[in-house]
């Protein structure tokens, strides 16, 4: 187990270096002038451009730029925004809100996804299985922003039971609708995954063995069908926590939540390349760490993995 953990952590290092390098390369080395992108359509003064290039080390060779970025990132120095605020402070303000939002979405999709998935899987072929399946298909097909608008319109405008947008420091109620919207697509995937797993485990040989022991149906379902079915679901959920943070941008924009996604969005609008790269790097890091945790979780849940 310890060996497995060590191996996974070591494997994570090249992935993180690789991803940050990739992102950095995409932003700063692609054809297209980052300085020009910063100013959009406006004409650029050559002196100003040169100054900016110097500030962001753009005048140095690419690999040096990257290493400097990495060095600074390790000390949490991501530079300043255009307005002069340290990027790390901006992130520090926005990130807790996104974490709160993502965790709520996580709980929502986990609870409802698993419950509906189990119901559908155990009663495969019944009418409510079909209903659950159709609803989950719909949730996957409709983009999050449409789901968001519809939710906003129905709950906020028409019935007025939930706030339409969240304020500066959103509370539980403010984030409830956004969290459901954010988690809706993943919930649909979890329903489908759980349903397939449960349905296939139901006919597994070891379930028949358990029944042949004389165990009650309830016990067989709990200990053998569900226990085994939930292993891939739990790992999917874990990996999803990372992508929820990345995907929060749309939801935060619709509901005007001042989280990391919205900050990223503002950065893109203003062409603040450093801010964008820093936030994306952070989110990718979170994503990779979540995946690592999932791998470890997998090893805990499934004894077969531990010994590989």
């Amino acid at each position, binding site marked *: 187990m310890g060996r497995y953990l060590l191996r996974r952590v070591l494997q994570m290092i090249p992935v993180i270096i690789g991803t940050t390098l990739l992102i950095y390369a995409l932003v700063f080395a692609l054809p297209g002038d980052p300085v020009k992108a910063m100013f959009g359509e406006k004409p650029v003064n050559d002196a100003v451009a040169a100054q900016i290039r110097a500030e962001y080390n753009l005048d140095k060779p690419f690999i040096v730029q990257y290493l400097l970025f990495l060095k600074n990132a390790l000390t949490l120095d991501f530079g300043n925004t255009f307005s002069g605020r340290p990027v790390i402070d901006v992130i520090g303000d926005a990130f807790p809100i996104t974490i709160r939002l993502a965790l709520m979405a996580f709980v929502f999709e986990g609870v409802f996804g698993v419950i509906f998935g189990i119901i559908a899987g155990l009663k495969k072929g019944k009418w409510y299985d079909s209903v659950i399946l159709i609803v989950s298909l719909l949730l996957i097909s409709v983009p999050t922003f449409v789901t968001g608008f519809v939710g906003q319109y129905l709950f906020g405008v028409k019935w007025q039971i939930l706030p339409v947008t969240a304020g500066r420091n959103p509370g539980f109620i403010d984030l409830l609708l956004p969290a459901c919207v954010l988690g809706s697509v993943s919930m649909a995937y979890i329903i489908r995954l759980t349903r397939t797993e449960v349905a296939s485990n139901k006919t597994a040989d070891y379930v028949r063995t358990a029944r042949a*022991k004389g165990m009650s*149906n309830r016990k067989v379902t709990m200990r*053998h069908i569900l226990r085994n079915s939930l292993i891939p679901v739990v790992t999917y959920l874990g990996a999803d926590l990372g992508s929820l943070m990345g995907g929060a941008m749309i939801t935060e924009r619709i509901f005007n939540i001042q989280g990391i996604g919205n900050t990223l969005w503002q950065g893109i609008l203003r062409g603040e390349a450093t801010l964008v790269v820093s936030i994306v790097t952070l989110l990718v890091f979170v994503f990779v760490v979540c995946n690592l945790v999932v791998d470890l979780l997998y090893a805990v849940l499934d004894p077969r993995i531990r010994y590989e």
Partner: protein
Amino acid sequence: MTDNENNSKASRPLLQVTGLQVEFTTSAGPVRAVRDSSFTVYPGQWVAIVGESGSGKSTSAMSVIGLLPGTGHVTGGSIKLDGTEISHYTQKQFEQIRGKRIGLVPQDPMSNLNPVWRIGTQVKEAIVANGMDVKREKRSELAQKLADSEAEGHYHGSDDELFIGSSQLPDLMEESRKALLAAGKTEKQADEAMARFRDDWVPGSETRWRVREALIAEAVEADEAKRIATTYVTGATMDDRVAGLLTEAGLPDAAVRARQYPHEFSGGMRQRALIAIGLAARPELLIADEPTSALDVTVQKRILDHLHYLTESLGTAVLFITHDLGLAAERAQHIVVMYKGQVVESGPSLEVLQHPQHPYTKRLVAAAPSLASQRIISAKRRGDAETADESMDHKAASADTLEHAKTIIEVRDLVKEFKMPRRKEMFRAVDDVSFSVRRGTTCAIVGESGSGKSTVANMILHLLEPTSGTVLYRGQDTQGFDKKQLLDFRRHVQPVFQNPYGSLDPMYSIYRSIEEPLKIHGIGDKKSRLARVKELLDMVELPQSTMTRYPNELSGGQRQRIAIARAMALNPDVIVCDEAVSALDVLVQDQVLRLLNDLQAEKGLSYLFITHDLAVVRQIADDVVVMQHGKLVEHATTDEVFNNPKTQYTRDLLDAIPGGRLRLGLD
């Protein structure tokens, strides 16, 4: 146990199935899997249901405990357990019977244990689900009476059935040793007795009265024996009981093993755990559904011997499902033969075997490799007296003609090492093996899984590089072949693999599959290739229309015949059959073996036949190479190996052939 006793006590059948019908609902309408099948099992008896795959044997057995797969359901007939009709039971009602009254030992040890729970936990479930008292043994009525008579009236009620507990075991041992010495034994005698006790006194399995009897048998005074047994045998804990059950099933180090997971167990060990589970609640009837068909023969024999011993001492009846007639006859008193969902013949084992009356049974008996005692005589030889003489020559000459000219393949000092993951030392899969294959004969390599026999085959086929040693084909070292020579070698040495479902590309039509070798070697034009494919299909006795079909439409045996046709396409000299008939039903297996044999006689082919089944070897091979743990243990002619085995391992293998000991005197 004698049969007279058995009869008088067991006048009432334990299980009586009459006119059973089972249907599966499919999108194309109901499919009848079992029609009108009847059989009876008496307490303490082994009854075997024999049939090929799809004969309805497992379906019949599963309907007895209400565990039919998928859409299967009983549509007619009656199932009586100890006189009570159970065929209409709901799942809830079946829960009351399962485990307690009818246990199950399923077929595939790999998939029947839940991979995420410890072995011990899974055994424990069986104990808990049936509310078993872990402190004492529950014996069937029959077994209780037996115990009573065995104990010669020393039986003292249910407290005598208390198990040894692991916490009390050290004290028990100490006291026993003292008592032995007090009874006048010398130190040495006492130590010997203690060693026996250590083996026998398994916590959670051995009971108080047996401890007492054991002490008395060692000349300890009855009162003292009773005192020790009563003081120190006071019942087991759950963990003891789990370990006890696993030990009973023949699992060594059970207490440690119980904390492990299924993937840490070998197939044989898992099967033992499944037996422990099946017997955990001391059922009156155990359904054993091909419990050992996935295992090596020697392991199979050990496990079945053990199961036999266990069920006998517990008085459990066994409904034994198998495809192997020899095995059935060896293990069961009564045989039920099923074919296409119906019972075609049933009766006492030996009688059915010696005087089969239904044509299907006759066919089965004739084909069963375990019952065959000699090599298949090819069609040509059968018809032709001269060649019959030649075959005699062939046999007679076999001993002294290992000269070069007649040798087509020779293997010298072959070694293959594999790197083990995360280990320094190499694993020797094949360790210094030398033998040769004579032209026009069949050489069989026999061994159990892990013996390295397939590795040898792959090295001969030039699919695997040997670590050292040489493979000579017609006296030439195959390692030194250049590209052109290798292609030529491939043309002359062809494989037929084990898995009939994997050996043909499912995307290719049969025509394309058989044509492929011709195309690769650029032989003929389109027209001549078509003619050749037709010819090859005739050769393997399949209709020419088969060539438009796809592998998914064919049975395992048919696919294997296609694989043979493909191997024959290039007119090879040598065919390497790697477990080519192992996955097939007996009759189909027999058919394929005869085909191979006829082809050999016609074309003068040489076969290298890799198999785990010595019974098949006797039917097809001229020479035998026996391998164990990568080493060659024995290399001689078939007759010599069978009549005069030189090593213990070969004797064990021979001994493990199911039904091998039955001397039938067939018609």
